[in-house]
């Protein structure tokens, strides 16, 4: 892990009606880190991801990615800069096959236009072959290569989550945001996922921000952890430190 700051959110605030979903939150994520974002249900974790990826505009505050202010950028621009995410409420392209789902995510790394695509002119055929191969490799990586031609909506819950990760990796991001990747998985799958996340971080040189409910998984996996409660950042630091923080214990046992 280096000291370079990949992601910084500064005084991020987002209000829905009278509710502060995210309230003046600031933190920095360093290159190569696995950064955990935890907190009770409704604490504002997913909203933080939506603010970072341009899907929800903040009321106050800024988001910096590698030093560049990306606060007012559109989601597709942010994806092109190298930030990929998965969704808590899985958002695959359900009618398409697993392979097509991953191939679509190669969009920003290909450039053939309509004419090249329709008439099979260069670089379309080469690109097509390359993205198909790349997509198969990624499916292989998440263990879904055997079902490459199956419609995404027919996958089991856990497999859909893995497919979403493969799709996100196809963007070749530098920063990967995973929103509750272990939700719906059993104990074995959870520990396998933990190893998997570590492995992809090495293999793809990723910085990862991870939202997770399951505390043991977060404690074992994350380098640092931020704890949200009612939209506010109540603790930030190494897992051991956060675990013993009275405010965190209070938030988790409070109700």
């Amino acid at each position, binding site marked *: 892990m280096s000291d370079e700051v990949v992601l910084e959110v500064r005084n991020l605030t987002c209000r829905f009606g009278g509710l502060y979903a995210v309230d003046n939150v600031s933190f920095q994520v360093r290159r190569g880190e696995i950064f955990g974002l935890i907190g009770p249900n409704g604490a504002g974790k997913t909203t933080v991801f939506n603010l970072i990826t341009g899907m929800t505009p903040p009321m106050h505050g800024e988001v910096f990615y590698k030093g560049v202010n990306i606060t007012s950028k559109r989601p*597709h621009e942010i994806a092109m800069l190298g930030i990929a995410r998965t969704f808590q409420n899985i958002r695959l*392209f359900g009618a398409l096959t697993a392979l097509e789902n991953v191939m*679509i995510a190669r*969009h920003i790394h290909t450039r053939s236009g309509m004419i090249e695509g329709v008439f099979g002119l260069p670089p379309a055929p080469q690109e*097509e072959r390359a993205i198909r191969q790349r997509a198969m490799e990624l499916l292989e990586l998440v263990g879904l290569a055997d079902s490459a031609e199956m419609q995404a909506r027919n996958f089991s819950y856990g497999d859909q989550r893995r497919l979403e990760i493969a799709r996100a990796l196809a963007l070749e991001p530098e920063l990967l945001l995973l929103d509750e990747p272990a939700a719906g998985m059993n104990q074995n799958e959870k520990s396998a996922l933990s190893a998997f996340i570590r492995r992809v971080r090495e293999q793809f040189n990723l910085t990862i921000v991870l939202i997770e409910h399951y505390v043991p998984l977060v404690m074992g996996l994350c380098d640092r952890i931020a704890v949200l409660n009612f939209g506010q950042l109540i603790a930030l630091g190494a897992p051991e430190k956060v675990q013993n923080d009275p405010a965190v214990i209070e938030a988790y046992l409070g109700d």
Partner: protein
Amino acid sequence: MEGFLSTYGSAIVQMALAGVLALSLYLPLMAGQLSLASPGFYAVGGYVAALLSTRVFTGFPNGSYPILLIALEMVVAGGVSALFALIIGIPSLRLRGVYLALATIAFVEVLRVFALNQPWLGGAVGIYNIPQPFFSATRVEYLLLALPLLLVSTLFVARLERSRIGRAFVALREDELAASAMGIRPTYYKVLAFTIGAVLAGMTGALNAHILNTWNPRQGTFDLAILILAYVLVGGSRTFLGPVIGGAFLVALPEIILREVADAPGLHPAIATFLRDGRLILFGVLIAVSVFFFPYGLVTPNLFKRRRKTNVPRLEAAKAAPKVSRG
């Protein structure tokens, strides 16, 4: 065959054109946009051809108007329609679902009223005596232009569907937010799909102006929008074949199939009369029934996939079988 062609020649030409119009609605739908603007572009295309052939390319004796000039008019009509599409697409494609459908219907209606009030477009009477390249009562010769238009459009959309751009369209249709998180620019691809659709509709209008011999504000109205929508919904909205087959089938059904059945010997006269006169009722019922029972239309991509699956060895097939499906 001769007899069939001379009886149904113009119906066959209209089957081909219906397929192209259906594709023009299918394209924005591929990108998740329910646009009913196709009749508007179709009307624009028709006027472009009517004006060019009666005001600009004059001096050809009727019956010998060059086919190549019609092709040229179709290209110009496609270009003009594309311009219109860009102008109205960029603001209106921010709208969603029913709102976009309403906005595009408004566009169709505005064009109609505009044409009605423009002397240079012939007002309510329109532009008539559009020159003919053929002497023929049935106009079956127009297949020389209609079939290539259908074939080229179909191939274009078929190829597009399997390309990077087509996949971006479909990603937007499936989940716009997820697509944008994959770096796909929603507005750009929506406008692109809408514009390609407009080009197809404009070209169809240009050709049909010649076939009908006249063009007026009654061409390309709301009624046509509903018909085209039916072609796509009945035929299928998930593969390019759906609209093409839907268009051909729904034109053939009242114009050819029901008439032939009504003429069948031994049919009770009351049934025959109903088939002839009540065919629009049957048509409506058919649309309602097929949309209800086949939400994605009669022709779906799975139709082809299932056939392929049966070739997979048994073990493989068992492995590929869905594990647990989520609600």
